[in-house]
């Protein structure tokens, strides 16, 4: 952007078509997926493929049944499928992503009238539904394969189940500390797309540079979680391991790729900052005191529900109206 354009929000980017935006976002998600498949083996690739295909199929089926225009080309169902798969453990039975994608598209999106009308992030709706319905599968994680040789062996690899770093922390037994660098590279148990922070950052920076997302939501979100866990996360105040909290769980994936969803987040900058802080607080509170080890998906969904209210009180009023 060479010219400085002064305008009042909401800033609408008319030049970009919806479908182009969607496919760019989809492209930015690729590194994290590749990293996930590399870390956990081929089973995670199947999860991603199945999730995407069922999301597309559900979308098409509903649009045919309700006699609307079939709009698979806009890429939104594709992204929903990918994001849902990224939020699943790598070794789930393959019917799980099918059910999750159907639910995400049907209940998360189509009942509201399709793309642009949904109140909640569809992928997250699918995820929390699966989490509440089949907690057994949703909380069974496998160890990362040894990088390099792992990928080749993964065809007949016997997965070793284990707990995620955050789940270990919750149980209070955090004996074998995973180093920050391992967390950063993704060498830890977790969901397919959330583990490799560096790959997620590559995608996020790409979106920043291209101007598809702004810093307001992700940065306030991550900072708030960091500060809150630093203050309350340890024994005594200001002793929490905030780096660990930022690097583990689905925080980075959620902050950059799900909280920033145009449709379900506030329009104004002020609203986006409130949204980010709200997400951050809720995530930290659930992590520290809630029953689940990770709270990012719930936090974003709760703030999705609050988005219309935030918009209502932060939108610039047209002069002379109430």
């Amino acid at each position, binding site marked *: 952007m060479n010219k400085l354009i002064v305008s009042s929000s909401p800033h609408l980017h008319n030049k970009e078509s919806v479908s182009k935006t969607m496919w760019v976002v989809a492209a930015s998600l690729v590194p994290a997926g590749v990293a996930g498949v590399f870390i956990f083996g081929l089973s995670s690739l199947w999860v991603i493929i199945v999730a995407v295909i069922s999301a597309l199929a559900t979308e098409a089926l509903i649009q045919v049944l309700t006699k609307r225009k079939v709009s698979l080309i806009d890429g939104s169902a594709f992204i929903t499928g990918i994001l849902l798969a990224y939020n699943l453990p790598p070794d789930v039975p393959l019917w799980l992503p099918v059910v999750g994608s159907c639910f995400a598209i049907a209940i998360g999106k189509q009942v509201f009238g399709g793309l642009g009308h949904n109140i909640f992030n569809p992928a997250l709706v699918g995820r929390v539904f699966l989490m509440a319905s089949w907690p057994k599968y949703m909380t069974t994680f496998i160890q990362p394969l040894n990088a390099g040789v792992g990928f080749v062996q993964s065809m007949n690899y016997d997965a070793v189940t284990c707990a995620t770093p955050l789940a270990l922390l919750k149980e209070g037994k955090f004996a074998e500390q995973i180093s920050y660098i391992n967390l950063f590279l993704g060498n830890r148990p977790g969901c397919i797309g959330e583990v490799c922070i560096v790959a997620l950052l590559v995608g996020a920076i790409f979106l920043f540079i291209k101007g598809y997302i702004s810093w307001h939501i992700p940065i306030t979100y991550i900072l708030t979680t960091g500060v809150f866990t630093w203050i309350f996360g340890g024994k005594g105040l200001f002793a929490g391991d905030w780096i660990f909290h930022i690097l583990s769980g689905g925080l980075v994936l959620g902050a950059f790729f799900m909280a920033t969803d145009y449709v379900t987040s506030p329009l104004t900058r002020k609203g986006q900052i409130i949204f980010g802080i709200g997400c951050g607080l809720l995530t930290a509170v659930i992590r520290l005191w*809630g029953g689940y080890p990770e709270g990012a998906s719930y936090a974003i969904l709760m703030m999705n529900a609050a988005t219309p209210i935030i918009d209502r009180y932060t939108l610039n009023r047209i002069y002379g109206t109430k």
Partner: protein
Amino acid sequence: MSIAQFLTIFISAVFISNVILSRFLGLCSFVAISKETKPALAMSLAVMFVTTMSSIITWIIYRFLLIPFNLTYLRTISFILVIATFVQLVEMVIRKISPPMYRFFGIYLPLITVNCAVLGVAVLNIDMFFVGAKAVNGSFVYSTFQGICVGLGYTLAMLLMSGVRERLDLCNVPKALKDFPLAFIIASIMSLAFMGFNGFKF
């Protein structure tokens, strides 16, 4: 009595066992009045006031009237009568002292009599803070606090829902799902989101 106890009551009443989204009390008013933010807010404030006051009153009646005279089986009848009388009284007082306030939420007050949330919280207080026929330590304060928190939970659900439904006016919602059905589906997703607080321990 401890801060942790209060916080647990708060989180439980507002989020985990949200009076509407998890206990389904006051559902009728929730679906009927949450179409716009302003009336939703008025109704919520009225409900919050009444749940708080009725928690106090029903606790006193249960502790000092029903228990000493061994009449606890009259709980339901006496509570609903007291609540109905109280609401009637408030309505009359408001109409006398502040006509604008009466116009603001007066019309919602009669509805509150048959709002399950009010009777629900009264019965819940008795179930939670009385063991046998004895009040537990701090029972009165807990009951009052729970009354306030249930009101807050109601307000939160109402506020979120009314915001969402105002936005849905602009949406191309499938015809069969318009209004009630969609309101329930949204409530279901909110309820799923609030499940994030399950197992909260401070």
